[in-house]
């Protein structure tokens, strides 16, 4: 699989990453090489094989819906880069 700079730009947009022109070139080459290696999986016939998403036989884990104490607001906001009135402050989402 060859990866073009345009592919890299598309994926970077999905991943919310901004790449320099140099990074785009580099990643196009490296991701292409990695994906070509990964194509060896196509040597295996996996028709009818169940996918494994998790090795343990655990599905939904439920607990009783009982209220319990949570973190105080000032603690939760301790690492916030910007905050106001007990909330995380960010640039406007809508104009």
């Amino acid at each position, binding site marked *: 699989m060859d990866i073009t700079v345009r592919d890299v730009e598309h994926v970077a947009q999905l991943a919310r990453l901004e790449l320099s022109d140099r990074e785009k070139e580099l990643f196009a080459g490296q991701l292409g090489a990695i994906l070509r290696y990964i194509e060896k999986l196509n040597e295996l016939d996996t028709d009818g094989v169940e996918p494994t998403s998790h090795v343990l036989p655990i599905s939904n884990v439920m607990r009783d819906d009982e209220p319990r104490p949570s973190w105080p607001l000032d*603690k939760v906001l301790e690492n916030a880069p910007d905050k106001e009135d007990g909330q995380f402050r960010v640039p406007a989402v809508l104009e």
Partner: protein
Amino acid sequence: MSLLRMRLPELRDRLARGELRVADLVDASLRRIRETEEKIGAFLLVDEEGARREAERLDSLPADAPRGPLFGMPAGIKDNMVTEGLVTTCASRFLANYRPIYDATAVRKLKEAQTVTVGKLNMDEFAMGSSTENSAFKLTRNPWDTERVPGGSSGGSAAAVAAGQVLFALGSDTGGSIRQPAAYCGVVGLKPTYGRVSRYGLVAFASSLDQIGPITRNVEDAACVLQAIAGHDPLDSTSAAVDVPDYPSALTGDVRGLRIAVPREYLGEGIDPQVKARVLEALKKFESLGATVEEVSMPHTDYAVATYYILASSEASSNLARFDGVRYGVRAEDAGSLAELYLRSRSEGFGPEVKRRIMLGTYALSSGYYDAYYKKAQKVRTLIKRDFDRVFESFDVIAGPTAPTTAFRIGEKVGDPLTMYLNDICTIPVSLAGAPAISVPCGLADGLPVGLQIIGKPFDEATVLRAAHAYEQATEHHRLQPAL
């Protein structure tokens, strides 16, 4: 120095008899760090003040107060486990100033066992790497040869233990990140079964694979540390509600009748001849101790690295979406919109390997490629796991090398990600199967440590530890020390 070479149970007895104070142990650890850290660079943070304060507190407890099983033992924590009040960076610029408000469950359990946290250990950024060269902050060097890498991603943890800076360390293992650095640094590293140790407070890389475990100087210590951190945790719904046996009492020294499988794929092409020779010698030793050794085939081994890099990168691309610059970590200055804030904060905060893996994972999960890559890899994971299930029908453990070579030179593989990934060929299949595995020293090749990997059935760490301990006690390899 000599204090920090003793076994944990030995030190526990000396502390209990009053021959030793916790302050002596903590002093010894801090002194050793001062002497060696410039050469090794294992720590991202040394909490000298906190460690001394805790030593004083423990030493002043009344003589009849109950003592935790790891009372007074100085330990280091890989910097991807959150520690209340102690900066936790994941070796990433993104979290350079992140000060967690709570402890990871494994860290809390160590505190309950009354260990003393000496500091936070270097790693590859977000645990992505095999050499610790992907740390955003510093290089860690192998105590056996400072021109070489300590392995990774728990390179700081393995180097600190090998250099005698701490008695033990916690590491985390997603595709080999405890076992491979342990092998490279000549110490013991145990990756427990997936689900054996709570992941609560471990910064997530690949949630279906990540597991916390001990890096120690000998197998008995690994058993003691695992005992302290294992068990179900309501805060991690993927931690298993499986009984935790008494690990130290499993170390009987007896491996008569133990059935060891050796997959021929683990000793094939790409394995350094000297590494292979050390592993074969180790297997001979097991036979002389009364175990049986038989060659088997695990035919899907060769597909494990490709499978892993799809699954781990996909999970990482999703997990690392949380680093958006809103609630903690880096926030880009003067972003005009929320979208720009995400984009620029992430781009400024993440290093190249992290970006590469997020890109690979995002690609594999993107529209039109999901079935071809992600789902295909999940199916191959099933085939790889079946290889293990089949062998474990007739064998107790599986053995082979931990890594195909000894520690490589700093800078040797940084330009070629695929070659770096292939270095994890021996450890990745085990991670995909979720099985427990240990790396124990099995001698030197050209003066560098070689690790023997012993893999067990899921939740049968006891047999893995028993086998590793019997081998260790029958050999002198674990007594070898780097000439620092």
